């Protein structure tokens, strides 16, 4: 192996693995090693909840078969890194073993936030991020849990609530804010999801903040107390108040850190030949006007990896993300977003169009600037085409044009109800517009695809 340039990637999540795969595609010679103590083989972190709920087994969450790594000469090292010696370019593992590198990529992801609550280290209190977290949760909720409390109303919180509901464990869901995920979702959408959470018999408590986690003499959680003084007995507490870069093991060295590993838009840290991507990287400037310096989404991790691979292959390029998009699923309600839709906006600069179906599970929001140009959309409970909105945003379509062509954006399964017709009618009512509403097709009429 000597003589070959050796790229070592710490972390085999979506960022690290995408980087390794793309680098191999671009450079047939370079030696590539992926280091991870969490799991030898890459798995999809977003699917952990489905293992718990019995939709899949762990092996189903592995996107590549085990032979893939050897075939593509991607070496796998199942180790935890305890230290990095940047001057001699070595990793030191917890086992004591060393691994030299020429280029180092730090792609170590996140860890669940813990805000110093009393009792946060008790048994039965945990976040959910890693494979080990899932295993811990499985064993902690095996039996003897008559109620669980989840603290923090975001995506992992609602996933954890759904997981516990599968085990028929009653869940109290504490959300500090006045609406579910309301730092991201506009009020109407946040309320809609809130109602759906209640429909699933999850005890959603808005504007409720955790004060203390109470333990018994054996060090196990026995309840929590909220800031309002209410005590809720429970045997499991999920801490899901967001995540932050997993950089504790990097502290105290010459590597420049802030909240994450500080990088420029080429993912370079302050140390030559050391890069960082994914959840743990913090850009010195926001990569785009609507982006934050730390991007903690599956898709951005994938893009970081894809971009850095080019740099490592000797074709340096800077990170330049396209239009924002994201997706999630809240219990049964799917969510997609394209472009920029913040939780709130300045109505002197932005017009908002909102439609919600009478079922209270399907909704569409579109933001436009004052010239009528599309800024972004949210859709819930039905599916819209990424390509369509990417083009609409790039070509600066007007909101009216988007609505006029909405049938083309439809991505729902065949025979589904044509919600775009209702949306078009509502848009005409609210904003007018010189377009004709789509007609239901013969098939849609035949099979009574009612909206």
């Amino acid at each position, binding site marked *: 192996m000597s003589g070959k340039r050796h790229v070592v990637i710490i972390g085999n999540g*979506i960022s690290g693995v995408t980087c390794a795969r793309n680098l191999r595609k671009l450079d047939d010679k370079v030696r590539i090693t992926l280091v991870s103590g969490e799991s030898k083989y890459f798995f*999809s972190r*977003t*699917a952990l909840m*489905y293992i718990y*709920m*019995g*939709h*899949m*087994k762990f092996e*189903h*969450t*592995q*996107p590549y*078969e085990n032979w893939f790594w050897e075939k593509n000469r991607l070496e796998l090292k199942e180790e935890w890194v305890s230290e990095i010696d940047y001057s001699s370019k070595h990793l030191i593992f917890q086992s004591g073993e060393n691994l030299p590198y020429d280029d180092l990529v730090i792609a170590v992801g996140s860890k669940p936030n813990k805000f110093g609550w009393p009792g946060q280290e008790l048994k039965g209190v945990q976040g959910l991020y890693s494979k080990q977290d899932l295993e811990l949760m499985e064993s902690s909720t095996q039996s003897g849990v008559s109620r669980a409390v989840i603290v923090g109303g975001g995506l992992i919180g609602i996933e954890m609530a759904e997981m516990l509901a*599968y085990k028929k464990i009653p869940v109290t869901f504490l959300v500090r804010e006045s609406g579910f995920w309301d730092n991201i979702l506009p009020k109407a959408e946040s309320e809609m999801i809130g109602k*759906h959470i209640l*429909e*699933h018999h999850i005890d959603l408590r808005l504007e409720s903040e955790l004060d203390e986690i109470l333990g018994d003499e054996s060090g196990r959680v026995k309840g929590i107390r909220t800031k309002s003084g209410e005590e809720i007995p429970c045997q499991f507490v999920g801490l899901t108040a967001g995540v932050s870069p997993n950089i504790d093991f990097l502290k105290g060295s010459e590597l420049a850190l802030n909240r994450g590993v500080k990088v420029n838009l080429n993912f370079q840290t302050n140390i030559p030949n050391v890069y960082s991507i994914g959840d743990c990287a913090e850009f010195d400037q926001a990569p785009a006007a609507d982006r934050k310096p730390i991007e903690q989404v*599956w*898709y951005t991790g*994938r*893009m970081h990896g*894809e*971009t850095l691979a*080019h740099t490592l292959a000797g*074709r340096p*390029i*800077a*990170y*330049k*993300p*396209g*239009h924002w*998009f994201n*997706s*999630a*699923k809240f*219990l*049964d309600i*799917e969510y*997609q977003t394209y472009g920029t839709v913040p939780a709130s906006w300045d109505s002197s600069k932005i017009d908002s169009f909102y439609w919600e179906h009478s079922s209270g*599970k399907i909704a569409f929001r579109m933001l436009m600037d004052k010239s009528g140009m599309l800024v972004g959309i949210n859709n819930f409970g039905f*599916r*819209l*085409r*990424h*390509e369509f909105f*990417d083009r609409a945003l790039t070509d600066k379509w007007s909101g009216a044009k988007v609505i006029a062509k909405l049938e083309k954006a439809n*991505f*729902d*399964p*065949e*025979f*589904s*109800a044509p919600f775009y017709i209702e949306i078009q009618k509502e848009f005409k009512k609210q904003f007018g517009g010189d377009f004709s509403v789509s007609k239901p097709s013969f098939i849609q009429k035949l*099979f009574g*695809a009612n909206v």
Partner: protein
Amino acid sequence: MKLIQKLGLLLFLIGLGSFILIPFLGSYSLDKELILANTKEIHQEKLVEVLEPMYGEAFSSNFAFLSTFNGYFDSYNDKLKANSQWDDVIWDDYSFAFALAGLESPVKENPWLFLFLSIGLAVIGGLLYNLPKHQDEPEGIKNNGTFHSSLKNRGIVGMLTGSFLITFYIVLYWFPAYLVNLVSMVSPISEMLSGNPASQWFLYGLIYTLAIIVMGIRMFRKYRGNKYQQLRTASVMFFQTAFAFLIPEILVLLNQPYFDFKNIWPLDYDFFYDYQISTFLSSGGVGMFMLIWGILLIIVGVPTFTYFFGKRWYCSWVCGCGGLAETVGDPFRQLSDKSVKAWKYERYIIHGVLVLAVVMTTVTIANYFSGFSFLGNATNQLHSFYGFAIGSAFAGVVGTGFYPFMGNRVWCRFGCPLAAYLGIVQRFKSRFRITTNGGQCISCGNCSTYCEMGIDVRAYAQKGQNIVRSSCVGCGVCSAVCPRGVLKLENGNEENRINDFPILIGNNSVKLNV
């Protein structure tokens, strides 16, 4: 589980238990009149003589009766075979006919009572279990606990279910004489439909159809809110009940040939057999219509519909095997093997069966037109080999018996020659594809896990690539279970249907440098 569902499960188990016990009831006896009434004229004299020792004796079980019968029958034949008197050997199997005629049992006396206690209770139980499913839950994906279930994850219940199905198919295909109680039990229904007593195939057709209906209702409950799933389930239920079960029986009642208008060669492998052809040709206008209809389906129907809609128009909307797989088999879809290795085997085996079916049929037709001078009776050997190995063992025993081991589409994926033909059209000349929604895939694996055909859907979706695969039956479940709205079954322009080098939307840094 609700109380009514528990009751349903109990009734189903009682029905199933009765169904298993019924074959062991009653007694059997033979006499001369019975043999004469159930034997071809050329065999009558011999059989009356050979079986004489059995006259008047009452056999208390089917095992005793059949082993005694086989003893006399085989020793007669063996002697002839040893002396190479091939023309005198009785090749016909009379065991089923004699057992059916010689049976005296409470089941034969009270067929409706026993029908109610077995199949009736199983159906009622199945409905009571399925109808209230997911009643208090919002619409959505209902895969909770699939891999924690013993039935659905190759646990002990799954093993038992598979073993039962395999045993049932083996007895049905090769030892039907043991099932005469069940056959006589369903005979009144057969008499009502076609005017004829039931055969073991009528029994099978009845159970098959009822299973599709009861488990189709389960599909309606499970996929509430997904119109595509609802409609295609209703479609397979309709085609099985009307086209595969009722219409052929009614045709017989009207003195027309038994014919399933939706069964297509080479799945319908005996369509061109000489006895089929002569039936068509001797049945006037109706027979001629059947022959032309069957041929048109093969050469016009399959390519045209598959061009416009993909092979799903047949495999998951019309086909009987598909119908069973999509209803009874749905709980097992996640057990299909997704590895690249399995895909390699699949391509060799399924295309091998297609080649075999084509060769066999070509030889048969050549033989027919040459007035049986070409190869003579060798085609019969070929037919019986194909019928045994593919028609019975592969399609039946493995195809359905292996649901709890290898998923619900083992036959469709590895064996069906029609699926191979449809697949070739779908792969190379079709408007059908599964579209990937830009960069939205999170590689979670639900699509691949629940693909009954073992397609690694995620491998395409995470690259932003459309899925164009010959094996895809278009069941739409990958799209249904996707938590991020990434997959859509579509018929569209052939241009850009297959994109070998897709670019994931959303990362302009890379696009700019390509």
